[in-house]
């Protein structure tokens, strides 16, 4: 599974918890915040930037 996100959008978005920038993990189809250790899903092309829906990573 690969995910796309436009550069201009990624530039504006931030982690809803830490407010730090997000990076795209194309293969996982996730937006990752390294600061908060959370990975947010992208569903049908729409980033789901809800802390409750995020996957905790190490």
């Amino acid at each position, binding site marked *: 599974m690969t*995910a*796309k*996100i*436009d550069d*201009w*959008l990624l*530039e*504006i*978005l*931030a*982690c*809803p*918890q830490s*407010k730090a*920038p*997000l990076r795209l993990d194309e293969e996982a189809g996730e937006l990752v915040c390294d600061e908060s250790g959370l990975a947010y899903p992208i*569903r*049908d*092309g*729409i*980033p*789901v*930037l*809800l*802390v409750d*829906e995020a996957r905790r990573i190490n």
Partner: protein
Amino acid sequence: MYGANDLSSLTLFSGGFINFGYWADPPGGPDSAPTVAERTASQQEMYRQVARRLDLGAGQRAAEVGCGLGVGAALVAAEFSPAALVALDLSAEQLGRARERVPQARPGAAAPLRFVQADADRLPLAEAALDAVYSVEAAQHFEDLPAFAAEARRVLRPGGRLAVAVFFLTAESARARATTLLETFGNGVDVVVAVDDFTAVLRAAGFTDVAAESIGPRVWHRFDAWIARTEYRDVWSRNWLRAYEEGLVDYYIATARR
């Protein structure tokens, strides 16, 4: 509350917009029944009124909080030429419908409009990233208005503008009577505050030039005339006009500057 129900499928909300409308002078005269075209135009005009108060123009970056089906955001993107418009909503179901209705917002499409699922009180946006933040008839569903105000201020650049269009109580003392008239106030679907309390929340968050302009004369009478020709003609919805005429609620566009 927008899960299984697509409010835009109701005749109350034509054209995929979900707002009460900012109505032009009726072409058929004040006593004429509003047409579907007038109803759709009223909901589009509500978005234009909000966007104009943001001084939103070419090259600017903006967010809509509580975009619902996204057709309002699509209008703003098409008519006001922002460089970026991020349309946020909490509901996955609403965004699923938005995705179908507004294909120009899909990843890679040329339009500078994208949907993101997010909470109004935890905005997933970078600090000072935006020139404008707006919301149309959604703030009555925000759970934490002080948190929303703080977040809106955080994501705006210095000088950036906020506009919130929604109904408020005219005063806290109107709450008991308004709650008996309006079903969505009583059952908790709409969590409505007094207009002065909302502007106080914006000032407390650090906004300046805070104002709340009544647009009731452009909303309530024609909205009621529209309800009168829908399946809601005999139910409590007619009480919106009554609550307005009794001085209990009004429709406002609140504006502020970061």
